């Protein structure tokens, strides 16, 4: 039956649809025709792509295809398996769901004032019996009050959620869900999962109503009318919501004994049970140890050092599926992908890490308090598409390329290094327990180590070649800029007063790249030396141990990923380009991807692209003076870090503008902190280069 409706009305009558409304409508005919046509076509496309290959819709969702879709709720239903892929059964499924929701309502709303027939004999309003309808009634009232309190505070900035009708629907859904899932009950945060679902459904309903209006006399696909039926907003939202909740139950679940009493009355006096650990904390630890440590060890170590566990902010990020961290429309883009990914909801783990890495340069520069502030109030100017691309890349590296500007630091040296690291896993393990060398292991390590060293040598040669090329470029560049007085006056005049020392962006970039290579080489070499030392010193005395630990610390310390100096000039350039901002932001990812390539150091044509520089503002712009400043400081510190390593010959000259006390303060402290490792590092490095 449903099949028939689908085939006849939709697939066989496109001509009808195309011509009739144009004659009937008096308004702007072309426009109405187009929007109608698009609406109808999108529906047909959805159905046909389901018939052909149902995986297509997942791809479509990953690629942000749902952003403009008028059927997002249908896609979500499909992705979450609330609806099956066979569209001919949709009407029947919807019917069943809506009926079962009605049953749910009847079951859980027991009003003792009306419901005399089912009365237990000796029931009265003061009864404490669990079977008492009165007792249940009061408990319901309490739960409803708690839900209500949260619902009215949903998304304060979005008017949609101020409508009393919407608030009532939300309260109902949450109430029935809590009663239908007594082991979950209602927990704060659930309503912010429900809210976007409702928002999307409502939007789709409005689109359909609009379509019905402009297609007035035409036959409209009955399946469509039935699946997107505005009169069942509550029931349909309930099923989407409970499906999502079943996937993220673990974020909310606690396994303590008090949960039942807590459910009946969230404010209950007794029942304090601190024996349990929320499951979400375990998951966050997993994310930290398995994903963050792998993707960004430096950040991982830093957060650990500051003693900031992920659960401080991560509980909220996960429980609300990032609802507080992004604007609603951006959030939907994330959710499209999360739902499309899998029922296990793995993607949020990667999104969380991508979000951390995205603001790593802010975090790495901040003290405890500032770090927490960034994490508790995630910066608003972050591009959600970048986060998503990066998360997808981390999860499925073969399928999704790393977005070009996901990190602003180099990825070049990492390949040989990881090869080396993975070829000698023992050396990794040993880092954790330095002085407990197992002789049996040592032999097996040695052969591995040989491989490692060979890989190292290769890497170093590679880097030296690169370095040589860069040196040549640098020299050429310097002479060019001296001759011409460097034709960047337009740019220069906009440069902030405090930024005088950035004489030239390109120059600085090359310098920094040099320095980066140098640090990487030093780090790799140190790692090998450390490895060798640990193997050959069988019973290290305390001072030797200390020295080795010092080297190890230095290794970790040198594991610095570099942030490109583009950040340094973002301030002044922003000022210069305010007029173009709008334009730049419309193109979002594509545009920023394209431009950021100019920052990648591979191509020599870097030198000839000075006119391109101002356009690089398509980077995420600092949203206030503080961030702006922090990125300047970042530049300073990164450079300062390099000074003790390259003996300060070259770089210091370039850093005339940096306040001297910062340098001296910094270097002396570093030296003070790592007294043993420092000379070793300098020698081994300078010998090599």
């Amino acid at each position, binding site marked *: 039956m449903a099949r028939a409706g689908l085939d006849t009305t939709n697939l066989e009558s496109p001509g009808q649809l195309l011509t009739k409304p144009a004659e009937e409508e008096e308004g702007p005919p072309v426009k109405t025709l187009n929007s109608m046509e698009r609406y109808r076509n999108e529906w047909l496309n959805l159905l046909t792509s389901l018939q052909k290959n149902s995986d297509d819709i997942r791809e479509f969702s990953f690629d942000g295809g749902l952003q403009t879709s008028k059927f997002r709720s249908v896609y979500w239903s499909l992705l979450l398996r609330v609806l099956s892929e066979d569209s001919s059964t949709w009407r029947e499924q919807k019917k069943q769901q809506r009926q079962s929701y009605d049953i749910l309502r009847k079951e859980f709303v027991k009003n003792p004032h009306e419901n005399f027939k089912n009365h237990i004999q000796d029931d009265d309003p003061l009864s404490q019996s669990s079977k008492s309808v009165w007792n249940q009634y009061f408990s319901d009232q309490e739960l409803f009050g708690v839900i209500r309190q949260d619902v009215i505070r949903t998304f304060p900035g979005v008017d949609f959620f101020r409508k009393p009708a919407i608030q009532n629907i939300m309260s109902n859904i949450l109430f029935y869900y809590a009663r239908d899932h007594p082991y979950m009950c209602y927990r704060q945060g659930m309503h912010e999962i429900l809210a976007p679902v409702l928002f999307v459904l409502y939007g789709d309903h409005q689109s359909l109503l609009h379509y019905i209006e402009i297609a007035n006399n035409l036959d409209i696909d009955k399946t469509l009318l039935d699946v997107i039926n505005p009169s069942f907003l509550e029931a349909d939202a309930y099923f989407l919501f409970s499906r999502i909740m079943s996937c993220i139950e673990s974020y909310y679940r606690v396994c303590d004994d008090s949960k039942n009493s807590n459910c009946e009355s969230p404010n209950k006096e007794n029942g304090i049970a601190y024996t349990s650990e929320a499951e979400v904390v375990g998951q966050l630890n997993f994310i930290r140890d398995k994903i963050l440590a792998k993707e960004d060890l430096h950040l991982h170590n830093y957060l650990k050092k500051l003693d900031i566990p992920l659960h401080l902010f991560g509980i909220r990020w996960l429980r609300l599926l990032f609802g507080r961290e992004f604007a609603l429309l951006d959030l939907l883009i994330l959710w499209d992908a999360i739902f499309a990914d899998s029922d296990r909801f793995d993607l949020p783990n990667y999104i969380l890490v991508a979000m951390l890495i995205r603001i790593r340069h802010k975090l790495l520069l901040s003290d405890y308090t500032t770090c927490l502030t960034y994490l508790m109030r995630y910066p608003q100017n972050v591009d959600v598409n970048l986060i998503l691309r990066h998360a997808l890349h981390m999860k499925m590296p073969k399928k999704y390329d790393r977005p070009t500007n996901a990190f602003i630091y180099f990825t070049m040296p990492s390949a040989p290094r990881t090869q080396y690291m993975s070829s000698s896993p023992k050396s990794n393990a040993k880092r954790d327990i330095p002085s407990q060398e197992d002789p049996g292991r040592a032999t097996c390590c040695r052969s591995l180590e040989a491989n490692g060293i060979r890989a190292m040598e290769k890497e170093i040669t590679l880097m030296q070649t690169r370095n040589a090329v860069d040196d040549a470029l640098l020299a050429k560049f310097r002479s060019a800029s001296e001759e011409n007085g460097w034709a960047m006056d337009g740019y220069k005049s906009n440069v902030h007063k405090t930024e005088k020392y950035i004489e030239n962006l390109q120059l600085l970039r090359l310098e920094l790249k040099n320095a980066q290579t140098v640090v990487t080489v030093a780090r790799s070499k140190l790692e090998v030396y450390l490895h060798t030392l640990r193997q050959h010193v069988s019973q290290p005395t305390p001072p030797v141990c200390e020295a080795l630990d010092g080297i190890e610390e230095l290794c970790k310390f040198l594991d610095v990923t570099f942030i490109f100096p583009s950040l340094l000039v973002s301030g002044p350039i922003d000022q210069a380009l305010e007029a173009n901002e709008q334009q730049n932001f419309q193109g979002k990812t594509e545009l920023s991807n394209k431009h950021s390539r100019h920052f990648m150091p591979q191509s020599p044509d870097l030198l000839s692209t000075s006119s391109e520089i101002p356009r690089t503002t398509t980077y995420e712009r600092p949203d206030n003076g503080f961030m702006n400043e922090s990125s300047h400081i970042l530049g300073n510190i990164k450079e300062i870090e390099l000074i003790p390593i390259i003996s300060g010959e070259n770089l210091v000259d370039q850093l005339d503008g940096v306040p001297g006390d910062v340098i001296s303060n910094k270097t002396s*402290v570093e030296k003070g902190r790592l007294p043993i490792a420092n000379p070793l590092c300098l020698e081994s490095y300078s010998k090599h280069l």
Partner: protein
Amino acid sequence: MSSAPYNYNYIFKYIIIGDMGVGKSCILHQFTEKKFMANCPHTIGVEFGTRIIEVDDKKIKLQIWDTAGQERFRAVTRSYYRGAAGALMVYDITRRSTYNHLSSWLTDTRNLTNPNTVIFLIGNKSDLESTREVTYEEAEEFAKENGLMFLEASAMTGQNVEEAFLETARRIYQNIQEGRLDLNASESGVQHRPSQPGRTSLTNEVPNNKDQCSC
């Protein structure tokens, strides 16, 4: 900002606790931003705020943890208590149930913090006099019995909010002066900052003038 010493002498850690919807986040917001946040979304997990205040010519940085009311059964919450120098325990004067739960909040606090933690009782929403369900006198009595400091305050008008935070800080500072707090113990909730940065490196706290306004 480079070579300036820390712009504060001490860091005190505070926690704000109490039932759902008593206005914990609003009190925090009123204190740090001096603004009332109508319709503030409820707290999931924990929120965080800072402000630098002055006691006895000493600059004190308050590091304030605002916990979610519904989170009290969670093991996670316990870690927020650890090392708190001050605890602001909030109830809503217009909802008696929130007052009735105070004794269990107090038990939690006593069990999970150190004996010197200063506990301050705040009866919030004092602007809603017409719907009051808890009298000032009985709350005062409760505070006296349990050795708590007490004020009625309003996050809406800002009345007494400042005072509650400052009074707590004064009491903590007094404890320090009288040698009752061991500054070297991490659970004291107090960190002392010498006037010159003793240890500055990439990974340790860098004095930051922006703390006051960036949160």
